[in-house]
Each structure stands twice: as structure tokens, then as C-alpha cells.
């Protein structure tokens, strides 16, 4: 048996036990010499290769500069399917080759020409030795003694308290990161849209009002409130993110309209929020036959023929419906804001009034 005992750095006796190594360590195997070590011509070939790599770098670097100034940015290379911006591609090609060749040259130099003798280095345990530990502890005690921290205890404690309290102003300053979503702030922001009684529904691209008579059965129109045009700058995006709607016309006989919503539609024209109740993507895929509306983000599917209930997917709530009517000219108008907040759920949301399958 070859159990050996030796002392490690800490003075502890380490038994390198036989069971760990049932086979004697043969020591590092030396690689046979490489072709470039034994064959003079191969060695010279490797040498030439490395120097050529490095030597080509300036060529590509200069080509880069020439292309930068000489190739106009509106020149295109047509390769059948792809239409490449000549300047971009040539700059990338020359720069890439210049950088790559530095690397290839250096790695081949190391692999083929540098000594490939493996070496061994001693390794030590990560922990410090017992003496070092003892010495460190002594130093700590001595320092504590010299600072009088142990005798005059309040210094240390009050210092800790002082440092701790400094976090408070730092954190409090963050209270102005944004407005506080208190009940009244919520009511003015995420719980309200710019829809209201009499606001016309307009096409979301042309901003033309939508006439009830122009919609055919099965048709879907993306719409916005007419008063969106009165807003400016970032307000447009904020309000659009809540007010976007879809208007669909379905055959009134093929859909379910609950008692409580009988006055919310115009001859089978229904209007729903376009903002998914899951995490807020704009919903866009409409299946005429089934009256299902699919969200492209996570595939929540809502049944527009049944007050917008969820029929599949991760959304947890029905799509809010906007009550609509027509004005005297026959254009579609909202009769109020959405009765419930639109968009994804949040903690303070009172979801007791949302429509659930089977409600009336």
C-alpha cells in the first residue's frame, strides 16, 4: 500500500490515501514533438504563415480607410436576394479581417512555434495557515484595544447608528421617482381614458369618423377617440396606450349580448378595448368565423361574440367593452368612458365589476 503522509502549509498532517489513487500517478505525459519541431520546412512554413497574417493586417487597415472615404453610402451591391449597403459591408469586411488576422497569427505562433512543454505549479489550499490566522486575530485584538472600542463601547455603537441612518435620506430622495399612485392619482391616470359621452370613433390611421352604416358584418376596424388629435407630444402616446379600440360588426343573431349590455351596441356593432388584459399588447388578430380575437404576444384569445371573455391563454380577465351609440349624422360615438379600467391588472384594481362568462 502506498499511503503517504505529509505536512501541509498549516502543519496538519494530510494523509493522501490510497483509495483516492488506486493507480500510481504516472506523472505528466509529455507530448510527442510536433511536426514543426522536427521538420525544418514545416517550422519555416509556420513562421511564414504567422508573418503573413501579421503582414496582411496593414493591408486591410488601409483598405478600410480608403473605403471609408471613397465608397459613397448610397451605393448598393445586389446579390439577387440580398441588397447590401456597399460601404457598410466593405468596412466590416476589411476591419473584421484586420482584427481576425492578428488573432489567427498569434494563436498559430503559440500553437506551432512556442515551446509546448507543459509545466507544473504547486497549488496551496485557499485557507491561510494556522499561524497566519492566529496572527491576524492578535492584530484585531490589539487594534480593538488601541482604539478603546471595547472600553468605551458607545463610540462603536453610535458610529454604526450614525452610518446606518445615512441610508434614510438616500432612500427618501427616491420618493420623487414618480408621482404617487394614490386613489385620486389612479383615478386620473390609469383608471381613466379620454373616451366620454359623445366622443366620436375615428379610424386610427385616417382619423375619419366611422359611420355605422358603412361597416359590414364580419368587418373589424382599429379606431381611436376623435379628441386624441387635440393632444400633443407624449400625451398622445400615453392616451393612445389606453384609448385604442377595435370596432367589429357581427350578426346580432349569432352572438350573445347580456341584458345589462343591450344598449351598448349598434345593430351588432360592438366596441372593445384593443389593449390586452394580460400585459397590455395591442390585440390584432381577428377570426371572423368564430368571433375570436387573438393577442399576438401570448395568444390570449377573447370571444367578442360573448362580451370579450377569455377562451384561451394566459389573460385573466375579459376585454373591457366600450358602450357606443350613433349621433344624429349616423357616426359612431361613445356613450361614456370604459366602465372598468383597461389594460393589464394591478393590485389596487377593483375587478368585481368586470364581465364574467354567464353574467347578465
Amino acid at each position, binding site marked *: *500500500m*502506498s499511503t503517504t503522509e505529509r505536512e501541509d502549509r*498549516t502543519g*496538519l498532517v494530510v494523509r493522501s490515501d*490510497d*483509495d*483516492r489513487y*488506486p493507480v*500510481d*500517478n*504516472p*506523472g*505528466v*505525459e509529455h507530448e510527442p514533438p510536433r511536426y514543426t519541431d522536427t521538420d525544418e520546412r514545416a517550422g519555416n512554413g509556420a513562421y511564414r504563415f504567422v508573418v503573413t497574417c501579421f503582414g496582411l493586417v496593414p493591408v486591410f487597415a488601409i483598405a478600410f480607410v480608403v473605403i471609408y472615404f471613397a465608397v459613397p*453610402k448610397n451605393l448598393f451591391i445586389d446579390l439577387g436576394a440580398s441588397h447590401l449597403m456597399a460601404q*457598410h459591408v466593405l*468596412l*466590416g469586411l476589411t*476591419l*473584421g479581417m*484586420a*482584427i*481576425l488576422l492578428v*488573432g489567427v497569427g*498569434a494563436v498559430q505562433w*503559440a500553437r506551432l512555434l*512556442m*515551446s509546448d*512543454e507543459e*509545466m507544473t*505549479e*504547486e497549488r496551496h*489550499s*485557499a*485557507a491561510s495557515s494556522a499561524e497566519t490566522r492566529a496572527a491576524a486575530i492578535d492584530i484585531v485584538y490589539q487594534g480593538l484595544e488601541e482604539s478603546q472600542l471595547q472600553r468605551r463601547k458607545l463610540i462603536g455603537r453610535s458610529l454604526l447608528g450614525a452610518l446606518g441612518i445615512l441610508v434614510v435620506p438616500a432612500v427618501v430622495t427616491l420618493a420623487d421617482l*414618480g*408621482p404617487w*399612485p394614490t386613489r385620486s392619482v389612479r383615478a386620473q391616470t390609469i383608471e381613466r381614458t379620454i373616451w366620454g359621452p359623445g366622443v366620436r370613433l375615428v379610424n386610427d390611421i385616417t382619423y375619419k369618423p366611422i359611420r355605422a352604416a358603412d361597416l359590414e358584418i364580419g368587418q373589424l376596424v382599429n379606431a*381611436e377617440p376623435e379628441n386624441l388629435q387635440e393632444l400633443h407630444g*407624449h400625451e398622445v402616446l*400615453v392616451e393612445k396606450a389606453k384609448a*385604442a379600440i377595435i370596432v367589429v360588426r357581427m350578426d346580432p343573431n349569432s352572438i350573445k349580448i347580456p341584458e345589462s349590455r343591450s344598449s351598448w351596441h349598434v345593430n351588432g356593432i360592438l366596441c372593445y378595448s384593443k389593449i390586452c388584459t394580460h*400585459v*397590455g*399588447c*395591442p390585440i390584432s388578430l381577428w377570426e371572423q368565423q368564430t368571433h375570436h380575437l387573438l393577442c*399576438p*404576444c401570448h*395568444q390570449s384569445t377573447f370571444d367578442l361574440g360573448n362580451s370579450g371573455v377569455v377562451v*384561451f*391563454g*394566459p389573460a*385573466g380577465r375579459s376585454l373591457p367593452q366600450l358602450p357606443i351609440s350613433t349621433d344624429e349624422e349616423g357616426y359612431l360615438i361613445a356613450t361614456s368612458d370604459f366602465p372598468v379600467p383597461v*389594460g*393589464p391588472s*394591478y*393590485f*389596487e384594481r*377593483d*375587478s368585481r365589476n368586470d364581465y364574467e362568462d354567464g353574467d347578465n
Partner: protein
Amino acid sequence: MAKPAPLSEQTTVPATPAERTPGPVLRRVAGPVTWADERVGAAGLGKFFLRKIFPDHWSFLLGEIALYSFIILLITGVYLTIWFKPSMAEVEYEGSYQLLRGLAMSEAYESTLHISFDIRGGLLMRQMHHWSAMLFVASMFAHMLRVFFTGAFRKPRELNWVIGVALLALGTIEGFAGYSLPDDLLSGTGLRFVDGLIRSIPVIGTWAEFFVFGGEFPGTLIISRLYMVHILLIPGLLLALIAAHMALLVYHKHTQYPGPGRTDQNVVGYPLFPVYMAKAGGFFFIVFGVTTLMGAFMQINPLWTYGPYNPAQVTAGSQPDWYMGWVEGAIRIMPGWESHWGSTTWSWNVVVPGVGLMGLLFTLLGVYPWIEAWLTGDKREHHVLERPRTNPTRTAFGVAGITAYIMLMLGGGNDIIATQFRMSLNNISLVLRVAVFVAPVLAFLITKRICIALTRVDQERLLHGSESGIINRSPAGGYSEDHLPISQGEAFTLTSHNEYPVLESEEISPRQAKARRFFYGDNMSKPTRAELEAAAHHADGHDGDHELGDGDHHAVTGSRQPELTGGKD
């Protein structure tokens, strides 16, 4: 490793005596170096670092790729900051991309278009930046898997593992923040998603949302805030953590794979100067060069085709960058559970897969070294890596984790799978809801069996040698195969892993005993010296004949008990 080999006779290259006549470069730097030595002790540093030994293995390059792509990100990122404007103020596009002329958009999007079309080399920088971000996260993942499956996270490297997990988490967030900056339709949709995610957090969600966005979504602040996060806060943290990661690496010295001459007391490899400077330095330029060529030829995030952000529009098939794919998948296959208690709403459908799952993954990863140490009771230091098969339960855990990850990734692409393979989207989601729990369990069981089978193959080679392919027919008509002895080097490699202690011991509680039985109760224990000698003897006597049988199974309940403590108490 599997060479049936008589050892090649030792060949030493004759050492040519070093030339001591300094060349022109050395002569020129001698002055500055002396200057530096007199101020910062450069010679001492050089003596310590220049001949440090690093072991060689392709899998050690994965961490290097992560490091290099981080440097490339810093370089290309600085270029982009020269022209990018992190502002949501509305402007009208007047640049040279015809199709968007005259459109209202944010300054952020406009300046990104400007970089892409009006700055020479700008598109190249953008695409290099995005490709190196992909490479950064991907190589961190791969590096982590290497560290996991070889047990490189064991004592004394647990801290470096935790730093690594933090790097991975921060890298993911950094990537997401960068992806959101251009304010195009796709990234805006991504931000909308994050808004929904933050909102869904119980109790504080709405407050967090208002604080992050400076009010209602999208507001005017989020891009400039994300910009600060993307170019200052997270890169700073990454830089500090990478420095700590490297410092610990130098302190611990790199781990090495088992092999002849390699033990827990040494490190075998090549010196930093000159071999690793050329190899690692050269490899940096290779990664950089390849990233540049990818930036030149492979289009990524062509955001001019998406248009500016518009909360009422969405591009079909919008997908996040791949590393968020698993979260996306979890969100997609989650059932729509939401509780309405009193006047409050609890969106489990969003918070569980979105916020909870990420927290769970990174927590589990972070604490894994301690879980395993508790399961095995192993407190020893380890510097020789394990081959994945010699630790079947850990390897099985890893494969189970990868399987769950893949199931979630499939969920993230369920629409693509449905359209490509003409399957029902709903059915894919329903199947995945089950598969995400069942598939990892199956993967665990199968992997564990495969590992154990592989250790038996090793056992066969150790005890009976390698198959020679020569079949003998005896006068009586029986057939047998000749076996050749394997080299001592290979035998040492196959037997140099640590074993765990016997299961029956009075010192541990029944619960611990159970944990240990679960973790390594099924492991094959390696043959003892006596058994190896007996086998060799047997081979001599019987001309290497061998019939397969399972007489070589050694239960771990044997009486051998290796030393378990690290020797420092």
C-alpha cells in the same frame, strides 16, 4: 482519453540556452521598465504573474469568450454613445432612409436611424454591439454549464460561482435595457410587457410602475433612465464583478481536468508568458474579428423596418431576444389565473412566470453549491474537475434543468412552431403545461442511468482493458475476445476522482443519511488497488479472456472511508 496505449517514450525537446543579448525592443523598453519597477515594483509583479500556469482545455475558452465579448461591448458601446440621444422628445424624421421620412418619432429612434444610415460604419457598430451582446449572454450560459457539470463550483470556488450567477443575471438585464433604448415598435412592445410585469407584483406593483416609468406608461423618462442603467450602472457592476471573478480565479488557480500528473495539489499547463499571452490575446482578436464579420454580413435587429413605437400597433410574431425566450414561454403557457379578493387584483398569471420564475432560477443557481455540499457532506477542497459521469445525480439535475429550460423556450416560440408545423397553437400550449413538469423528471432519470452505465464502461476498461477486436476461437468451439491493458495514464485518469464517504455512519442524522443515499447511493465505486492488481493477474493467467458479467459492481457501502474534511479546522 480513450487511447489504449503504451506510453509514448519520453521525448524532451533539447532546451536551447536563452540568448541574453537584448534585441532592439528590449533595449528600448529597458528604461521605462526600470522606471516602473522603481515606482511600482514592476519586476516583482512580472515575476509573480508572467510564469503563472494555466491548464489548457477547449471548455475553458467559454469563459474567455464571455470576457472578450464584454470588452467588445464596452468598445462598440462607447462609439454608439457618441451619436445616440436618449430622449423621448418628438421630432420629425428628415434623414436619408426614405421610407420613414416625415414621420413623427422619438429622438432616440431618430438618432438610431441616424447611426444606421448617416454615420459611416455606424450600422457596423450597432450590429457588432448587438451580436456581441448575444455572444456575451450565450457564452456565459455555456460557461456556467461547463462549471456546473464539471463540479468547478465546489469548495473553494463557491463565491466565484455566486459572482458568476450575478453576472448572468446582470448580463440579462443589461441586454434587455439595451434592447429597449432605440424606442422602435419592437422594443416599445417589450417595454409595454415590462410595464405589465412590474404592475403585476402584489401590493407594490402600481407604485413600482409609477416609480420606474415616472408616471403612466410610457411617459417621457423611461428611455433616459434605461440609458443610465445601460451605460453606467450595470456596466459598472459588471466590471467590478468581473474583476472580482478574475481575482479569485488567480487566487484559487484554475481547475484542471483529471489526467496523468494532475492532482489536487498542483496545476499543470502552460505559462502566461509567452504561451497564454499569445493564445488568449490572439483568441480575443479572433472573437473580435468574428464579431466584426458577423456585424458586417449578418443583419440583426433591422429596426428601420419596424417603425417608431406606437402603443396601438404590434408587429406580428414579436419576439424578445433569445435569452428572454424562456420567460416569454413561461408567460405564454401559464393558465390565466387571477384572484379578485375584495377590491384587489392578484395576477398570478403574470407575476408567477414573469417575476417569480426568474427569481427562482437565479436563487436556485446561487445556492446550488451549498445544496450539494449538504447532500453529500463533502467539505473538502477540489481542484481536479469531475467528468460529468462520475457524478450522476448532479449531471442529472443539470440535464433536468436544461430540459425545463428547453420546454419553456419552446413555449416562447409556440406561434412559430404552430405555423411552421401546422399544429394547433392551443394544443402546443396545453402539452407544454404538462411537459414542463414531466420532461425534466424523465430527463433526470434517464441521465442518471446513462451516467451510471458510462461509469461501468470505465470500470470494464480498468479491470479488463480495452477491446482489441481480435476474436479467438478455442479448440472446444467457444469464442472470446482479447483485451489489451490500458495505459497507466488512462487508468490514473479514470480513478482519480474523489469518492464520497460510506453511507452507514453514526455521525450523521437519518435525514442526512437519506439525502446521501439519494445523491450517491447508486454511484459505482471505483476498484481498489487490490482489485486492480487481481484483475491484472487474472488477465495474465487467462490470456485476457473476458465474459461480460456484473460481478464488478461495488456498492458504496463498502468499508473504505476517505478523509472528508479539508484539513483546516
